[in-house]
């Protein structure tokens, strides 16, 4: 063995010479309670694994709430900050996924409320000119533009419950847990959200036809 230090790759590498390269982004080998404790102690390793576990879910939750929007990345980062700052409030490691979703939704709610107030005060337009994102493929753009232009006009609470139920495809119980509402309240708000969405969709012929006819978007 030479005296030169051996550089370790951060990813698996099948072609690595002997001795084997270590996988640095490893899974957590302890219990979930130990994992939660490590998060609460501020352990960088545990938080890196936390990112691997939950970043996709956080990103998807924010993206489905906002659609193609320039703020998605910033809100994901904001949610991550909030999660780090509030992790000491978590007592049950089994509650981690639900807690992550609830904090993410709270982050989105804050942003939607800010936008809603600005729109009411006429600081913002009705957000019909939505950012189109970076995708080159334009398929489905019209659908997204129509749906999110309607959602932009809904109150934050109704928008969130609608998206969680129909776009995120969560069960009513999960929506209730995420929004910290009772099941009855969740059902009531979802019903109001459906009515509001349908009413606003009447202004957009393609979307209205879609909802009335029940056809899939083409």
């Amino acid at each position, binding site marked *: *063995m030479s*005296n*030169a*230090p*051996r550089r*370790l790759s*951060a990813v698996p590498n099948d072609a690595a010479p002997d001795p084997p390269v*270590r996988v*640095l982004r*490893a899974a*957590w*080998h302890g219990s979930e309670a130990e994992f939660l404790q490590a998060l609460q*102690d*501020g*352990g*960088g*390793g*545990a*938080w*890196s*694994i*936390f*990112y*691997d576990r939950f*970043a*996709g879910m*956080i*990103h*998807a939750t924010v*993206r*489905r709430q906002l659609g*193609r929007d320039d703020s998605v990345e910033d809100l994901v*980062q*904001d949610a*991550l*900050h*909030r999660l*780090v*700052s*509030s*992790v000491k409030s978590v007592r049950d490691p089994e509650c981690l996924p639900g807690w992550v979703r609830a904090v993410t939704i709270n982050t989105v709610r804050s942003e939607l409320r800010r936008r809603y107030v600005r729109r009411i005060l006429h600081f913002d337009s009705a957000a019909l000119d939505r950012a189109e*994102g*970076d995708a*080159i*493929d334009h398929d*489905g753009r019209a*659908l*997204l533009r129509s749906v999110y232009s309607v959602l932009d006009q809904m109150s934050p609470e109704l928008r969130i419950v*609608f998206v969680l*139920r*129909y*776009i995120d*495809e969560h069960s009513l119980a999960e929506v209730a847990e995420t929004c910290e509402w009772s099941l009855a309240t969740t059902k009531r708000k979802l019903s109001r959200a*459906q009515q509001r*969405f*349908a009413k606003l969709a009447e202004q957009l012929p393609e979307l209205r036809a*879609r*909802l009335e006819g*029940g056809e899939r*978007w083409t």
Partner: protein
Amino acid sequence: MDVNRFENLGQDVRRELDAHGAPVPSDEQRMILLEHAMRLGERPAQRSWLAPAVAAFASILLMTGIGWALSSVWTEGTAPINPPQAPITTATAERTTHWIEARSDAPERLELPDGTVFTFEPTARGRVEVEPGVAVRTTLERGEMSASVRKGQPNTWRFWAGPFQVQVIGTEFTIRWDAAEGRFELDVREGEVRVTGGPLVGAGMAVTGGQQLRANVDDGAVELGPLPDPSASGALQPEPVEADAPAPSAVVVVVPTERPGPDHPQSPPAHVAAPTEPARVVAQPEPARPTWKEAAEAGRHTEALGLARAAGIDRLIERLPPNDLLLLADCARLGGDAAAARMTLTGLRRRFPKADPAAAAAFRLGRLSGSPAEQVRWYRTYLSESPSGALASEANGRLVQALHRSGDAPAAQREARLYLERYPSGAYVAFARSVVAQDANP
């Protein structure tokens, strides 16, 4: 209206969103998260009423001169000796916290009753919390320290240096920590230790006798190899001491504490006494921290931005260290003030052009830029200053996007091909392929 129609509509929306923007891990987000988590771990724990009371009592002792007498019991030989010898501090049987700041011309030595010896090399600073028979928690804040840990003791041994943790059974080793560069080095001469933290995630890495571990927080590099020749260069060296610089005396602060738990609290730094004074027992109040930073670290970006504005962002830009400037810029960006974020990042690059955070600032400036041409400039700046940095793949991918948006198709395709070669499983592979495909099918 039929609920199924909403469900069908939602499924189509979900499919469209996921098809064109499936969530991908971002190295930038991961790094920012880890930075924030590290700050959380370093945040001072709630102190009991007893510690300030004891500290106040120690102050009274100091004022009446009794402190000086006590210090002569706890520390010996702090006057300059030629050649320098390590003064010895013997820990008592009570739970104690020893604050150690080695003078510039001599090491500082702490000997525990079980025979374990810690040596803080010149200019090194740290603290050793001893809970006899239970745990010994040592934090190296800067510089180099060695430990010779005796086997067979019931203690749990934990060492911290920045984000790294070293778990010890019985061994002899040396830790070096350069916070400014994010560099960590560990030489294990005997026994075995396990290192976690920083880029060493999960169960971490075992380092055995005769091995050296080097890790860098900034670029995630980890190197494990045999111990180098002691005369070889390249290892972290203690800060150079100017010949005519005043040599501060070593100061050991002994503060009994009843705070339990395995955490490693951030506590007030040791006070450096005047050059010719002997070591003393010194009580320090909790240092005041910038309130904007507290809010920022708690994730309250808007509040942090407001507090920073009240303190004067211009003034902060000229005063804060580079990592705090990055934090301030993030607050401004997340607080909705892109102009303040740009100003902060530009100030960081002006004041610390050679520091690692300068490259990170270039990356963030790219994200904040409105025009593709500006984005291209900043991402190229980042890649030139930190070609193998933690955000290199992200910057490369964003560079391809920016070039594509700017209409410079040949450059976009060139960078896209390079991206696919360098990061075949990267987050921007689909986009890069689509750019390359446009070249193939104009």
